[in-house]
């Protein structure tokens, strides 16, 4: 079969004609709660979305495009004295502009605006934490996708995520997050947010191209006095398929608590990785340890008791970036 062209950048308008899909179930390289990962016979080019915070004007066109493309229905909230609306990521709002007021050491004021959402980690903590077979997959181009029909809404992915991104839908009981518009990428298009972005602060393409584009942007920022401008592509999660250009790459936490060095929580690594025999009590989860114990010997299949345990886990989970920003 002929495959569609790989996605080009959002800078060069992708074709509008319907293209044949290039992202197929057979391109999945990792599947949650599945022992033997698939071995696709081809490798897609790695893709990335690059968000240049220094070009972002916080217009929320990305949020609007995300709502429309994914046909979600976020609640009409109140104004609570913030520009963030909705106030946080929700199961109906996969991306969110977060606004931070910052006075730099020179005394100049800055209004830092960061588009929050799934980072599409190369080493996805959500997928590793997920106990539901096939609920979370990763394609060979790097996109991490939630497959709702396989999702049990346990919320383990929330704990597994170092960026506090997935949200559990209260009525549908499934986890929701940005899909990097895998359905658009599959036909050679870029994500809806990139398409809508008026200043090309959001661009999309191969990870290699995006990294090169970021270098140009960083050079420009350095020429304007942002000595610590840099690329956010954190190695602790194997790099990400959503990257940021930051004016202050030495202080990512300035941007509404973007983690300095995100890593998959030890509990998740301990559970799924080679150290799985380490007792859960030792890593601070004695309360749920008993319930989780049964998972160790087999693929992650969830019993009702696990759900209860998971809920407790979620409730006791650490608060992540952005909360209360």
């Amino acid at each position: 079969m002929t495959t569609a062209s790989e996605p080009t950048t959002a800078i060069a308008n992708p074709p509008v004609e319907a293209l044949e899909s290039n992202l197929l179930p057979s391109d999945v390289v990792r599947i949650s709660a599945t022992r033997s990962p698939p071995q696709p016979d081809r490798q897609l080019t790695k893709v990335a979305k690059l968000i240049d915070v220094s070009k972002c004007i916080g217009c929320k066109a990305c949020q609007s495009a995300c709502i429309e493309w994914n046909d979600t229905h976020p609640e009409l909230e109140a104004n609570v004295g913030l520009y963030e609306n909705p106030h946080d990521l929700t199961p109906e709002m996969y991306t969110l502009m977060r606004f931070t007021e910052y006075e730099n050491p020179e005394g100049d004021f800055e209004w830092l605006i960061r588009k929050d959402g799934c980072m599409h980690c190369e080493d996805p903590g959500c997928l590793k934490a997920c106990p539901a077979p096939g609920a979370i997959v990763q394609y060979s181009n790097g996109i991490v996708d939630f497959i709702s029909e396989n999702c049990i809404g346990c919320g383990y992915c929330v704990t597994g995520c170092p960026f506090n991104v997935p949200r559990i839908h209260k009525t549908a009981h499934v986890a929701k997050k940005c899909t990097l518009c895998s359905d658009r990428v599959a036909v050679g298009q870029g994500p809806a947010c990139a398409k809508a972005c008026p200043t090309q602060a959001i661009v999309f393409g191969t990870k290699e191209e995006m990294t090169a584009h970021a270098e140009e942007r960083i050079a420009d920022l350095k020429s304007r006095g942002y000595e610590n401008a840099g690329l956010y592509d954190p190695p602790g999660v194997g790099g990400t398929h959503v990257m940021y250009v930051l004016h202050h790459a030495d202080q990512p936490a300035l941007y509404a608590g973007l983690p300095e060095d995100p890593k998959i929580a030890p509990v998740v690594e301990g559970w799924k990785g080679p150290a799985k025999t380490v007792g859960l009590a030792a890593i601070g989860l004695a309360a749920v340890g008993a319930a989780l114990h049964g998972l160790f010997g087999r693929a992650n299949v969830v019993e009702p008791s696990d759900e209860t345990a998971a809920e407790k886990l979620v409730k006791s989970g650490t608060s992540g970036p952005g909360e209360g920003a």
Partner: protein
Amino acid sequence: MTNSWTDIKNTDLVVIMGGNAAEAHPCGFKWVTEAKAKRGAKLIVVDPRFTRSASVADYYAPIRPGTDIAWLMGVIRWCIENDKVQWDYVKNYTNATYLVNEDFGWEDGLFTGYDPETRNYDQSSWEYQIGEDGFVRTDPTLQDPHCVWNLLKAHVDVYTPEFVENVCGTPKDRYLKICEMIGETSAPDKVMTSMYALGWTQHSKGSQNIRGMAMLQLLLGNIGLAGGGMNALRGHSNIQGLTDVGLMSNLIPGYLAIPRESETDYATYMSTRGNKPLFPNQMSYLQNYGKFMVSFMKAMWGDKATAENGWGYDWLPKLDIAQYDALRMFDMMANGQVNLYFCQGFNPLLAFPNRAKMTEAFGKLKLLVVMDPLETETAAFWENHGIYNDVDPAQIQTEVLELPTTCFAEDDGATVNSGRWLQWHWKGATPPGEAKTDTWIMANVFQRLRKLYAEEGGKAPEPILNLAWDYADPEEPTAEELARELNGRAIGPVHDPADPAKVLVEPGKQLSGFGQLRDDGSTMAGCWIYTGCWTEDGNMMARRDNSDPGDMGTFQNWSFSWPANRRVLYNRASCDLSGKPWDPTRKLIEWDGQKWAGFDVPDIAVTAKPGEVGPFIMTPEGTGRFFSRRLMRDGPFPSHMEPFESPVENPLNPAMRGNPVARMFEGDLAQLGDRSEFPFVATSYRLTEHFHYWTKHNRVNAVLQPEFFVEISEELAAERGIAKGDRVRVWSKRGQVWAKALVTRRIRPLICDGKPVHVVGIPIHWGFKGAARKGFGSNTLGPFVGDANIETPEFKAYLVNIERAEGEVMA
């Protein structure tokens, strides 16, 4: 815009002042990011608030609302003092060398000729010295104390950096840094662009704010150049087009004037128009005024317009006063002088100041007809919505008719963008329900009216009975038919003036440019500046060739740009005296020895040799004006005036309130607040998430910005005991609103006259209809006074008070 959106990519320095392009024009703002990314351009933002534009700026400075003139005159002073002047440009392309009447002067913030009784200037001293030859006298050495240059120097002398800091609240170090950045663009190969919007127009001296920057741009030699110019960012989709075809109550299409009552016949009307050149050989393009006017009247009345009847001049309405602008109409309405009001694509209950007065005005109408795609607050002004529209329907007798119209995506037509591009669009959806195009509605009203006049007669029936109405379906002229009519066509043979035997355009053919218009009745054109938009070659507005051979963003084959498909106005000034571009990397046109040619349509006769004709062909002198002439009611130079409601006195003249010649209706003066009662400065603005009062009807937009809020500094919040997210009451002399408080460090108290001035930011987007939460607009609070020249309401600077509101929760 003198230039175009796409041209902004060519600049070295963007100054956003009097606007907030990233917030209110996010799509156009992409050209700023393009200039920054590709040209290394810098962005300066000057605004009372640290805005979304400021968030991506290289440098920001705060300013107290309503003090832009002082700020800009200070920059001009700094540039002169530091020799940051494009001298060749100033001496040759501006009126700097012209001599002005010796009687002209300026004192105590006022120019010569002021009459406090009539609140008007006698402008007779604001004139050039005219020599015996009938041409203006000049002093090319700039020595004469009465030459414009020396008058300008004297005029700006008071605006020292200290004066600016004291009046505007802009810290001196920040101000001087910006002066330096701006001053660099006086080099012939450096260019600055000015992007402004309602932040400059919505003042009682809005026109003078804009003139201030235009003068600075002339001083720096930045008008007419790629990447330069004065760029007004229009606030409504197609408001540029509406202005072009006669939005102003004193204008007919193409910026021609509606006659005054005193101009009793066409010859009298023309006697003060078609300006004679002030220099030998100068073009003074408006000498062609009669051709545009006769062609317009031929478009109106066809065969009925003849040389004998002055082309139907008698049938044009005549103004008994300067203008019936919206403020005047609503004042008349409030006084019971208006019976019937057609409100088309307009939501004045939320858009015009002093809402209580607006509500009173609508309640005195007999009939209000609202044509709109949405359910507007204006149409529902009589409904009670609790605190959000606290009226008693039983007391209102006005009959309201709502006629649902199509919106832009539901019909064909052209939309004119800020850069004067007429871009054709095609219907994308079928209108819902009984919605009809505005054209259908107006045509049907007209047909019925004409029938009544034909059958029953009436006073002055000729304008109605004689109106040309040659459309295939008289009940619904199509967009194509109307566009062809605006463009114009030959009625009789159009002859070549150089060779009368030669016929340039055969009868019935579409004209290809306004150079073909005639004042002998052989042509018709509804709007002369649009001629060329629909020629014999078809619909030029529908062109979509995005090739750009010079890479100058001039896109000659993309849509049609008025006038004459020209993308950069005054582009002759982009070249030096010999006709070579000041900056070869920014070539728009150049003189090739025989003619002007390049990547844009030359703004000069293509064969006019360099040096023979000045570059500003629309003025009789051919130059740009530091000293304006006959056009500004409030002075030939901008002079600092405080807003009508101000936290401080005018240091130039403490007794002067607001703009001394701005119109104030009886009763409105008493409704002005005083700083003792209303200590804080309010300023209104838009948010990216919404478009005016439309998008609150859309669920997605409503989610992104759901509820009315006001923005205040941490300092003011502390002073008034207000916390983030609190409900607050904001009130002015004219009304009160309730809002959520957004407490931010993006607004800081400004130190003016030694005292802190607090700013309260009030976005405009909420009402009592639509998907968003119910709220208010800033118009509830704003003063009923407008700009002295064009009557744009003073929404950007007025006084309020604020307190934490107890009790009632927002509905």
